C-alpha cells in the first residue's frame, strides 16, 4: 500500500470499524487491526463527513469553505489524516 493518496481518490469508511464519541471527539477502533484512533476536532469533522463516500478533494473543499483556512495547509492535513486512517484499516480508498 505504498500508493500515495491523491485528491481525486474516493474515500469511504471501512465497513468493519467501531466508533464512539466523547465530548464531541470521535474515537475509532479498527476491528481488523485491533488499534484505536482518537480524532481531534477537525479529524472528527472529516470522519462525520465521511458518512457519505466522496473524493478527498470534496472533503478539502468543504473544510476550506467552513474553516476559512489556508488551502495548502488544509489539503496537506487532510491527506495526512486520511493516509493514517487508511493505514489503520479505518478508511477505504476506491
Amino acid at each position, binding site marked *: 500500500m505504498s500508493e500515495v493518496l491523491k485528491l481525486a481518490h474516493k474515500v469511504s469508511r471501512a465497513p468493519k470499524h*467501531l*466508533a*464512539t464519541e*466523547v*465530548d464531541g471527539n470521535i474515537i475509532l477502533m479498527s*476491528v481488523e487491526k485491533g488499534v*484505536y484512533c482518537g480524532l481531534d476536532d477537525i479529524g472528527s469533522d472529516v470522519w462525520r463527513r465521511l458518512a457519505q463516500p466522496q473524493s478527498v478533494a470534496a472533503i478539502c473543499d468543504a473544510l476550506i469553505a467552513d474553516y476559512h483556512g489556508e488551502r495548502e495547509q488544509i489539503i496537506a492535513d487532510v491527506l495526512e489524516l486520511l493516509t493514517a486512517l487508511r493505514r489503520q484499516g479505518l478508511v477505504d480508498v476506491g
Partner: protein
Amino acid sequence: MSAERTAMESEAAGDLYLCGWRLRSALPLPELAPWTGDDRQPDLTIRTGSIPARLDGARDVSPLLQVTPEKQARLSIDGVATYWLRNAGEVIIAPQMADDSPDIRTFLFGTILGLLCHSRGLFPLHASSVRIGDRAIAISGMSGAGKSTLAAALTRRGHALISDDVCAIDPAAPGGPVVLPAFPRVKLWDDSLAAIGIESAGLTANRLGQRKFYFRFNEAGSFQATPAPLKAIYLLASSNAPLAGRSEIETLAPTLRIIGLHAQIYRKRTAAIWGLEPELFKALGRIAGPVDVYRLTRTAHLDDLAAMVGRIEAHAA
C-alpha cells in the same frame, strides 16, 4: 379461589430485586434484597427444569457455553449445574447439587448475570461498585486485581456497596449513566479477608472446599438499594516496577478511557458474537464523557490496602 390468590400473593411477596428487575425465583437466593418497587409482573423468572443438550441453532462460544443468534445461552458447569438463558426474562437451571448450594449461585451471578445484562440492554462492566457520598464509583479490573477487596474495605468504612464483580450500567439513563444495584455481597479470598480484618470461619464458601467466601453486608445502610448516578471509574493496573515519579491515581484522556473501559466489558466475547460490539462501543462514549475515568496503579500486595482505600475516599469525595 381465595387459597389460590393467597398462594399467588405469597409467591409475589417473595419477589426479589436484581439490577432494577423484579425477580421471581424458585431457587433460594439469600443474597438478594426483597422487591419493594411497583406491582409489575416479574421481569425475570428463575426456575429449575430440564435443559436440552443442544440449543437450536447454537454455536459453541467455549467448551462450557453455547449461544444462539436470538441471545439464548446454555452454560454447563460439570458437577454444579447447567443454566439455560431461554429468553431475556427466563433462566432455567438444572442443578447437579442441592438447590441451595452456593456454587449454583456463583455461576448464576457471574456469566449468566452478565449475559442477562447484554440481552436486556444493560452495559455490564467488570467492576465492583460502591456509593461514596451521593454518587457511585466503580473499581474495574481483571480477576485478582483487587476490585472486591477494595469495594469491601470501602463498604466497611461506611460507604454502601452497590455490586461486586459485575457492574450493571444504564448508559442512557436520563441525567447520565447510572449503576443498577445487584446485592450486598462480595466474594473474597482468605488473604483479602485477613487484610480487611474479617474472620473467614463461619462464612459460606463460594465453591465447596474453596478458600474464597461470600461476605454479606447486613447492617442497615451498607447496601445502596436504588440506582445511583455513576461519577467515576477507577481502572486498576498493577505494577511490579517502582512507581518513581508516577502518581497512583492518574486522570485518563478520552482515548485512553475508551481503551481501558473497552477491555473491561464483562463477557465481551459473547457480546461480540451477539453482534453487540458497535452499540457497546457507542455506549462507552456515553459513559466516558460524563464519568471521570482514572488509572489506579498499585503494587500487587495487600499491605498497602488501607492507604489505597484512604486515597480513593479522598479522591472520590
